[in-house]
């Protein structure tokens, strides 16, 4: 009975992949026809302006690509999906056939070419603009200004870079205890015992993924509305992002620890808290420290960017002078940022190397 059920699922799985393969083909062709119609047919053949894509067009091309992919799906070696999901049987073509003689290769090439063309068009790539005379004049002017910095504002710049440094420091420092706690609850090896464990793990993972996938820049905008423009908003934004990023790194480290020392502590009659404190923590302390320092380094770089949207510090100063087009002063600020960031980068690298060895 068990055997039969397994076979049934195997059977289902097999056909599931045919569905995936077909869907891949369908959307591939739909994409091809839409791009071709919109960017090439309308532009070069109709030579009209590019009107908005109507829903009628989409329905029409869905039909076309349905027909197209359905027919090609049943012709051997004409479906990319079948190739990707390894559903091709070497019926007409052995795998020894040269790649140029396999139809799916040419279909894939066609898709690649049209995607590249689409990319060139959308990014408005133009060598004329890149090498124009007036463009060169402009870039010469701005570089000359940036390379002759105005040191009259160096004192304010240093104060501002100090602010940025401490935004990064506080964001890292305050995120560590949160991340430390969360990491234990979001590591799968400690959280698979009961349903409640797994549920909490699942919820935490979703929360972490969401906060991590929203950039600190966006968080800074949100927090600058919440607590007002300034270093506090920037710090909160970085802290939130650091919590989720560090939790992820920490919990991955916890997932890689050895079971042995835990068994040892457990077998002395210790309780769960003691097992974590003596069996888990000593194994992860050094990597955690290393991750934290690396995160501080990242936070310093991010803190400058966050200043641009009102997170305080040197970034905010940079955007102000940029707005006033005072390029000499912008040059000073860029110089200060570059020195501080590279110093931090260097020291964090040294400390992490030492930790790795010690």
């Amino acid at each position, binding site marked *: 009975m068990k055997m039969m059920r397994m076979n049934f699922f195997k059977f289902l799985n097999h056909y599931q992949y045919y569905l995936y393969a077909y869907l891949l083909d369908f959307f591939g062709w739909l994409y091809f026809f839409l791009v071709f119609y919109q960017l090439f047919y309308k532009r070069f053949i109709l030579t009209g302006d590019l009107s908005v894509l109507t829903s009628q067009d989409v329905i029409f091309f869905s039909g076309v690509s349905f027909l197209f992919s359905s027919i090609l799906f049943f012709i051997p070696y004409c479906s990319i999906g079948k190739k990707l999901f390894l559903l091709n049987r070497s019926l007409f073509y052995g795998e020894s056939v040269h790649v140029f003689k396999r139809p799916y290769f040419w279909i894939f090439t066609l898709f690649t070419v049209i995607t590249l063309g689409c990319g060139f068009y959308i990014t408005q790539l133009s060598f004329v603009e890149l090498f124009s005379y007036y463009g060169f004049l402009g870039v010469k002017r701005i570089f000359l200004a940036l390379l002759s910095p105005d040191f009259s504002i160096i004192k304010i710049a240093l104060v501002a870079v100090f602010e940025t440094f401490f935004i990064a420091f506080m964001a890292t420092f305050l995120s560590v205890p949160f991340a430390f706690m969360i990491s234990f609850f979001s590591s799968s090896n400690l959280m698979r015992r009961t349903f409640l464990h797994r549920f909490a793990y699942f919820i935490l993972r979703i929360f972490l993924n969401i906060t991590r996938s929203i950039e600190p820049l966006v968080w800074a905008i949100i927090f600058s509305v919440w607590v007002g423009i300034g270093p506090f908003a920037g710090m909160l934004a970085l802290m939130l992002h650091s919590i989720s990023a560090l939790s992820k790194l920490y919990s991955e480290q916890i997932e890689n620890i050895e079971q042995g020392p835990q068994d*040892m*502590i457990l077998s002395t009659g210790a309780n769960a808290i003691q097992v974590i404190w003596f069996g888990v923590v000593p194994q992860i302390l050094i990597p955690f420290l290393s991750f934290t320092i690396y995160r501080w380094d990242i936070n310093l770089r991010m803190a400058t960017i966050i200043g641009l949207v009102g997170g305080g510090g040197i970034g905010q100063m940079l955007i102000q002078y940029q707005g006033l087009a005072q390029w000499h002063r912008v040059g000073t600020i860029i110089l200060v940022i570059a020195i501080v960031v590279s110093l931090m980068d260097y020291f964090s690298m040294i400390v992490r190397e030492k930790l790795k060895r010690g």
Partner: protein
Amino acid sequence: MIKVSNLNQYFETGVPALDNINFSIKKGEFVAIIGPSGSGKSTLLRCINRLVTPTSGHIYFYGQDICKMRQFVLRQLRRSIGIVFQQFNLISRQSVLKNVLYGSLGSMGTIRSLFHLFGQQDIALAHHNLSLLGLSGKEYVRIDQLSGGEQQRVAIARSLMQSPVLILADEPVASLDPVSSETVMMHLKKLNQDRNITIIATVHSIDIVKKYFTRVLGLQAGRLIFDGSVADLDASVVQTIYENDAYELF
């Protein structure tokens, strides 16, 4: 002292790791469990202090069923059973003394243990145990600077902190060189004779079994196929126990 009856343990795939095991052990015995790799030796050993929970069956320790114990009672039980592992399982970045003191974690209050506030008695006992195993003078050396044999002796010293009535040893000498294995086995033998501590060990070297142990349990593919004194362990029995393994070789 220990009575195992109808013990079964299945892997998640449904393959039996232990298949209907029955035996009993008296206090003060020095028991070796032998068998080819994957025959369930370690699983059986780990069932006794329930690092592995058996699927079904009973293990009686002084009349109490280990398999049905609640967490709290189980922790009480584990305090009186020392365990020594093949890979030593010590905390490698910390000192010898601390690793030995971790043996007394079970009898300490949680808060005190988190701040490493070990009692004076425990510290004195740790020093005593270390000198017993010939490690005095190495108390403050880090574990990762010791040799394998020394690490295993630290592990034994740690298990002595629990004042155990039973020591389980999971391949205690498998990753040691011959001289260190002799030392470790000598110490185990001495503990068995002087303090009347029951010792159950999984071993894969027949020479060591014949030299030190008094009783042998032979496992093959999860079934107990031999249970007797070392005197009964002749070549034909050994061959029967390792039979399947020999087939796999050819």
